[in-house]
């Protein structure tokens, strides 16, 4: 089916996954209010939300296979980059919701609001990945951020959660300001907020340099905050530590993924022509992010906080691909974010389990002997950790290798060496969890496994996650091809088409 936007119904079709999810989210919100009067844990609402994600994924698949767009300049892109990104977000949100189910029930959180906020945040993410217009990116970003601000502070009875919500909100609003100002300057420089038009203006040299340079810098700062790149990462550990753990998983995985998707499209498509202006800045940000994220993670004694710093480090690896700025690197970012989503949420799911669906027992000592008490969960955690560390045989290795491939093609050897050396540093803290789990004897009957109750659904999600991680490590071919196809044409579509039309 070809969408040419002659009828306004085409707009609905082009936004079908987002529409499905928005409607679903509002339905859950209403249902949550009516359920509250009856009491109950709200688990069904979670499953309804998962069903909504599944329908959105189906709609996304229909768009992928059955629909084409006429011109590649609409505000919302109908390209494979968007669909790949959408599946990543939907998968991450589905995992996050399923691991939230027992947590929300046990902490007596308002299920309706909780699940609908996650759905709305996913809608925001999908807008960020699909936008071909800087304003739509901003709208998506705000939609996502507001949902996540609320989710971070969702557990009102927990002071740390409230602190996390406030901190995230204040700093996030600040960063949104930077981003918005950057958008305004770019608009001023090129006369358009459409990424493809901006790209053409930049390429043809019609952009006003005096506005362009500060605009690019402010955009970089705004995105760097959202992907928690050093030195804009200060909020990350506190927010990740204070937020309810399933929310932290969602933030570390999907929110970061969405920010990277938008970052990628804006910088590699829109600002490709001024690559010379921004690659040095990002080079340094990437290097510093990898070093600081990994080195500071080493000294963390809290697993949740350690994973927060490790997510900063992963952001550094992804930034290497952005600096490389070629198609291989862009495909690498997509594949990495998919894998990263699975393994990060998997690792956090174990943290929730060890903490027995609460915020307690997240210190590394609490993992002593966990592996022998709960062999299955211990094994799953070990695989997730090895994958996060990028160990061969897991998808994490293939993903990290993909990023290195992009960096190598761009000749970024120093960054590649920094990447692998900081990876060695990361082995230390990932393995530390493994050694507490397997190599130390449990101290008493009150070991971590004694209390932890894991629902079947969490087990199933974790087993699926590990299966995907190992499958992606051993037979990544299909996923790699999909990622490569998803960026095919992304970076030259309009530039090539518009070139002959130019004067």
């Amino acid at each position: 089916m070809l969408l040419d936007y002659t009828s306004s119904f085409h707009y609905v079709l082009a936004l079908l996954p987002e529409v499905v999810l928005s409607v679903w989210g509002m339905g859950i919100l209403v249902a949550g209010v009516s359920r509250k009067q009856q009491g109950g844990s709200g688990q069904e609402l979670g499953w309804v939300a998962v069903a909504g994600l599944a329908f959105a994924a189906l709609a996304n698949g229909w768009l992928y296979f059955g629909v084409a767009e006429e011109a590649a300049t609409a505000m919302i892109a109908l390209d494979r980059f968007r669909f790949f990104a959408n599946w990543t977000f939907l998968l991450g949100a589905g995992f996050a919701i399923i691991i939230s189910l027992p947590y929300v029930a046990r902490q007596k959180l308002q299920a309706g609001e909780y699940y609908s906020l996650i759905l709305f945040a996913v809608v925001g993410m999908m807008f960020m990945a699909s936008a071909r217009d800087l304003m739509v990116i901003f709208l998506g970003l705000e939609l996502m951020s507001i949902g996540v601000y609320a989710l971070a502070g969702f557990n009102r009875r927990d002071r740390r959660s409230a602190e996390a919500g406030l901190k995230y909100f204040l700093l996030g609003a600040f960063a949104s300001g930077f981003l918005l100002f950057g958008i305004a300057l770019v608009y001023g420089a090129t006369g358009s907020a459409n990424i493809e038009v901006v790209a053409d203006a930049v390429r043809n040299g019609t952009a006003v340099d005096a506005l362009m340079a500060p605009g690019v810098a402010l955009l970089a700062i705004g995105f760097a905050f959202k992907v928690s790149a050093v030195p804009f990462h200060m909020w990350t550990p506190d927010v990740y530590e204070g937020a309810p753990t399933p929310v932290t998983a969602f933030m570390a995985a999907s929110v970061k993924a969405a920010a990277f998707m938008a970052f990628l499209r804006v910088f590699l498509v829109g600002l490709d022509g001024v690559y010379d202006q921004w690659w040095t800045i990002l080079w340094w940000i990437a290097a510093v992010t990898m070093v600081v994220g990994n080195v500071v993670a080493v000294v963390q004694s809290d697993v949740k906080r350690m994973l927060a710093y490790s997510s900063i480090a992963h952001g550094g690896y992804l930034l290497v691909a952005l600096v490389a700025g070629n198609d291989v690197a862009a495909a690498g970012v997509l594949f990495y974010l998919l894998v990263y989503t699975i393994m990060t949420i998997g690792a956090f799911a174990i943290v929730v389990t060890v903490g027995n669906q609460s915020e307690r027992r997240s210190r590394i000592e609490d993992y002593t002997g966990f592996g022998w008490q709960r062999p299955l969960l211990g094994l799953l955690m070990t695989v997730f950790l090895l994958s996060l560390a990028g160990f061969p045989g897991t998808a994490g290795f293939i993903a990290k290798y993909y990023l290195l491939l992009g960096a190598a093609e761009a000749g970024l050897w120093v960054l590649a060496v920094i990447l692998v050396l900081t990876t060695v540093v990361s082995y230390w803290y990932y393995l530390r969890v493994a050694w507490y789990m397997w190599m130390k004897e449990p101290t008493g009957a009150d070991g971590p496994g004694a209390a932890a109750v894991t629902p079947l659904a969490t087990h199933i999600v974790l087993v699926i996650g590990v299966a995907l991680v190992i499958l992606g490590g051993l037979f990544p071919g299909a996923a790699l091809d999909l990622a490569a196809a998803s960026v095919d044409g992304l970076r030259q579509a309009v530039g090539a088409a518009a070139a002959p039309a130019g004067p």
Partner: protein
Amino acid sequence: MTDLLSSLRYEDWILHALIWLPLVGMAHVVVSSSERAKKLAFVWSLLVFVLSLGLWWGYEPGGGGFMLESSTPWIEAWGVSYALGVDGISVFMVMLTTFTSAIAILGSFEYVKTRRKAFYALMLLLETGVLGVFLATDIFLFYVFFELTLVPMYFIVGIWGGERRIYAAVKFFLYTAVGSLLMLVAILYIYFGGSAGSFAYEAFLNADLSLREQLWLFAAFALAFGIKVPVFPLHTWLPDAHVEAPTPGSVVLAAVLLKMGTYGFMRFLLPFFPGAAQHPTVVAVMLVLGVVGIIYAAWVAAVQPDAKKLVAYTSVAHMGFVVIGIFALTLNGLQGGMVVMISHGISTGALFLLLGMMYERRHTRLIEDFGGLGRAAPLFATAFVITALASIGLPGTSGFVGEFLALLGTFETHALAAILAATGVVFAAYYMLPMVQRVLFNKLDRPENRKFPDLSRREILILAPMVALMIGIGVHPTPILERMEPSVQLVLERVEGAGATPSTASAGSPDVGPDGYAGSARPGGHALLPGTASAPSRRVEPPFAGLGSQEPVPATPVRED
């Protein structure tokens, strides 16, 4: 025998079976009961060993290249294949691996008393990893297996090890990882620098690299393998890992894992970077490190109160012989290095097993706690003496053949290094014989030692084949030498044949850019992924301006679109 093998179509499936059967065994162990785990693991590893014996007949030393080759695309987008093959160098490593794995598992029956299922599962996983390292002919596949061996070993040391097991396990893991990750970057560099989008061994051999590039890449590969060997200043992880590891872990570590390093020297380092490998400075550095390792480790071993630590240091010394043998770049030297690898695998493996038996009986490894065991346990003492003599390199044992050939080969090209290294043989006697004397022959003055039980039937079964091999190879090494000769010769030819061209042609030639790679030699963008062939490829100069640049940072990155 050959007829029987070919009737089974042995050559079609053997290499795949060797790699994957241990994994099947691992799955079997995991689903079995804890009591049956050890027997199952032994049966599976024995099966793998018996199958691998066929290689002795199935492998024909022809031109020295890979035999029984097979290749299936694995990750097509990146040009990675699941490619296996065996040549005169790896065939012995494979047989050594299957042999020591079975022996180590049999030797762990009494030593490992807890969490048996996990232990034997990890041992079998380790066997798969090591066999993959020796059989892979695709560089990516090799790397995956090379790293894969780390995980099971980490857990074997960390869970079943001694007091400081976690320290030792982490140190082992991180040391090895530093080297191998830098090697990964080097592999990528070659992948982009002329192997034409393929990870095949042949493609890497033909990669067009300038001398300057070769030296850098050589350094990265040498670091990875040198840590594994371990070459002298990089050896500090080894005594810790050996001492803390449980007996079977030490056996596999000494017999097989260290060989992955020297195997890497022969298989990858020399043929890939012939210009660097022949560079006088490089050769000098490697020989000096080898000689220093031999002498230093011998001195340190001599003062160890802990018998296991003593044996651990002897590993460093023995591997020093392998290093000088390899970098002498002579046929005798390389062959000697190979024989030392095999001999060290058997004799040091046996020593660790013997020390493990002592530890099982007395729960101590301090030399001073023993004495006069020769009277209490004559069979044990016999095996101990033969093994120790093989380790020293007494004529008539396997150690002599290897060290003699390695020294001979070194003497042909670097006489001084050979003379200095030869003193290491004397020092070997200096550290090993007093240990033997204090353990076996002094007064039997401790009551515990009087009751020291002699070898059990299982232990005889473990040690008898090892002792037989030590003497067998020592007396009649010809079948081994003639099987490995064509392949070793081929390594030499690759070094000497290909090495002459780049080392003379591009020393200081203008096409080596200030940025460290030869600009003209490198094609612009490879078609890495389907559909990206026409994409712009960026060649960015990072702010540090590459490796050892003399030019100021260029203002703009080079973009090739």
